[in-house]
């Protein structure tokens, strides 16, 4: 206190505001302000343009009433800090808040009929705990909807859907569901506890995988996906984190049908960019277009790419950047990153990473069949051939659209001209052969030999040319699609 000073100077008050007034002056002045209305007025006039604050105040009040409504949440930035280090404290908070006490002190707590041992995973939707079911004396994995999401009706519905969708698909390569508790404070679903790691964890640990593993994991994941597709379900979130690799057993399981949705169901979110990483989304998802099962097939392509190279094909610092890459760009050639990957596997992957769904391999079953044959070839190269169809696929991904579209068109036309040339040549040869049918007849009876000659030569010729013609018409179709895409892009632009 410094009662002799009746008023402080403007400069000193300004310094106090700037936190630049030395002690003990600062304390004295602060105390003085408690008593002196004049100096307070001085302070406030210095501090705040009252007109500014008067205008800002109602808005500040609205913001502070519901700060969550003003924070970015939907398109999460990939730069967001890692949550791993929070796991421990989260688990204990969670245990305190939502689990009832367990008889067993080594347990975190109890949820329904399950003793909860430890946290084993965390996802966008919730937390996965290792649990123990005493009655059946078995370990289980309990997936609990995150508390902040449990308040949202939409999230609860989605969680319930996951249970329904997964339960509908019974398949060795799809993670099964034991039971569901939907109408409780925190909904949860119970799955078998299977010692495993996710493909994502393995990639983080070991980097690119051996080609046999790439083919085996890809094949099994495709089989699981085929089972879901046959139920009319689109998974929509196929990524390494959702592909589980059972420890010590060569079994792969597809999991997390949280975004899965029946093709004809319009009640839930259409595009599903809600949480997590978008690196494995398809272009149609990134576009916000409707998706069908072929969207999942693109994601399988991205997963195969990640297994070959150790990283996803489309990368950027932000979610938005990734979505743009997926829509527009061509990933780096796999052979540049991992020279051990053969060209034919790269062809399979590019065929899946086609921007237009119609250009991809058309079903998960087809993928599984192709990968299975490839695996057989790798294991028995002398006795098993690669699938013939791979040879007709391009060795590099389709170039970026629309920037390099003219180049693509030019290349395609060149190919068509080439095919035309080959066809004419073969026709000439065929005609020559037909004109001189007995020239290479081994038998002596020329009369009877003339009859089969045209019959056999024509199908032979046709067989030789057919793939080329098919490919040419596919190219033409693709160019049509590409120009249609461009047209659509022009028509769909905002006003």
């Amino acid at each position: 206190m410094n009662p002799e000073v009746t008023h402080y100077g403007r400069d000193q008050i300004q310094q106090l505001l700037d936190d630049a007034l030395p002690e003990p002056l600062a304390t004295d002045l602060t105390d003085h302000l408690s008593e002196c209305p004049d100096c307070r007025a001085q302070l406030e006039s210095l501090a705040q343009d009252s007109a500014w604050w008067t205008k800002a105040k109602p808005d500040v009040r609205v913001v502070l009433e519901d700060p969550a409504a003003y924070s970015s949440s939907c398109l999460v930035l990939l730069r967001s800090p890692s949550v791993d280090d929070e796991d421990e404290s989260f688990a204990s908070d969670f245990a305190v808040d939502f689990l009832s006490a367990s008889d067993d002190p080594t347990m975190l707590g109890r949820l329904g009929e399950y003793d909860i041992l430890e946290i084993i995973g965390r996802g966008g939707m919730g937390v996965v705990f290792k649990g123990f079911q005493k009655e059946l004396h078995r370990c289980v994995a309990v997936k609990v909807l995150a508390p902040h999401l449990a308040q949202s009706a939409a999230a609860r519905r989605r969680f319930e859907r996951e249970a329904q969708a997964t339960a509908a698909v019974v398949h060795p390569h799809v993670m099964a569901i034991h039971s569901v508790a939907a109408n409780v404070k925190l909904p949860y679903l119970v799955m078998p506890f299977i010692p495993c790691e996710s493909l994502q964890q393995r990639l983080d640990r070991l980097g690119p995988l051996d080609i046999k593993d790439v083919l085996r994991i890809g094949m099994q994941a495709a089989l699981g996906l085929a089972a879901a597709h046959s139920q009319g379900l689109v998974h929509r979130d196929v990524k390494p984190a959702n592909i589980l690799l059972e420890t010590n057993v060569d079994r792969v399981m597809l999991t997390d049908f949280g975004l899965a949705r029946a093709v004809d169901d319009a009640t839930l979110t259409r595009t599903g960019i809600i949480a997590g990483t978008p690196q494995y989304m398809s272009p149609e998802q990134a576009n916000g277009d409707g998706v069908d099962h072929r969207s999942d097939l693109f994601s399988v392509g991205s997963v195969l790419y990640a297994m070959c190279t150790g990283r996803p094909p489309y990368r950027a610092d932000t979610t938005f950047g990734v979505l743009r890459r997926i829509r527009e760009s061509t990933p780096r050639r796999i052979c540049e990153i991992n020279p051990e990957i053969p060209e034919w596997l790269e062809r399979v992957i590019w065929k899946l990473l086609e921007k237009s769904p119609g250009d991809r391999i058309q079903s998960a079953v087809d993928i599984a069949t192709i990968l299975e044959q490839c695996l057989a070839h790798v294991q028995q190269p002398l006795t098993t051939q690669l699938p013939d169809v791979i040879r007709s696929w391009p060795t590099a991904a389709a170039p970026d659209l629309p920037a390099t579209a003219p180049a693509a068109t030019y290349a395609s036309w060149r190919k068509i001209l080439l095919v035309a040339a080959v066809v004419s040549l073969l026709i000439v040869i065929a005609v020559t052969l037909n004109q001189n049918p007995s020239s290479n007849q081994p038998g002596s009876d020329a009369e009877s030999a003339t009859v089969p000659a045209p019959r056999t030569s024509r199908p032979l010729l046709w067989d030789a040319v057919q793939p080329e013609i098919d490919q040419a018409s596919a190219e033409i179709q693709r160019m049509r699609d590409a120009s249609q895409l461009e047209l659509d892009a022009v028509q769909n632009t905002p006003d």
Partner: protein
Amino acid sequence: MFDDAPQTRPSLLLRLRNDRDERAWSEFLTIYEPLLLRVMRRRGMQECDARDSTQQVLLRIYGAINRYQPDGAEASFRRWLFRVARNVAISFLSRQARQSMSLHDDMDWSELEGDGSLESDPFDQEYRQQVLAWALQHVQREFHLNTWLAFVETSVHGRDIADVARELNMSTGSVYVARSRVITRLRTKVEQFEADR
């Protein structure tokens, strides 16, 4: 100045047009993503639909940013953004109406069908609030909890200074200083945001 902030100055626009400027897009999203979400929710959309629609608006903006020409009038970019948002919302809601064969009575269509002129710029307030929210979030971290609470309780909620001082175990003088400091910082932060646009 905040009062007459020229919303979205050309510099951010230019940066948004540069494909490699991820930072510009994340800055853009910080402000406009929550803003669009709120606008969509206010139209009566369910949470997931609001998110979907917001995403569509952002993707459309991204797709068309290179063709966008400011019309020279105030808040040109925001009015454009609003038109896109309105189109997305209308097409979503009409699709939904077709599917359920019933219109939602509680839906406010009037604003959606507005002409998007400056007078009816419904983003103006949302935008101001969003910038303030951004500034509040940053400024809060700079102060001790008591300083912050002194500001919130007295300046925002208008509570009696002596009461708040007692609750926070501060002198009334400290409460005055605290809230003045916060407001000064807040204003500086908002102005800095505007200057960076």
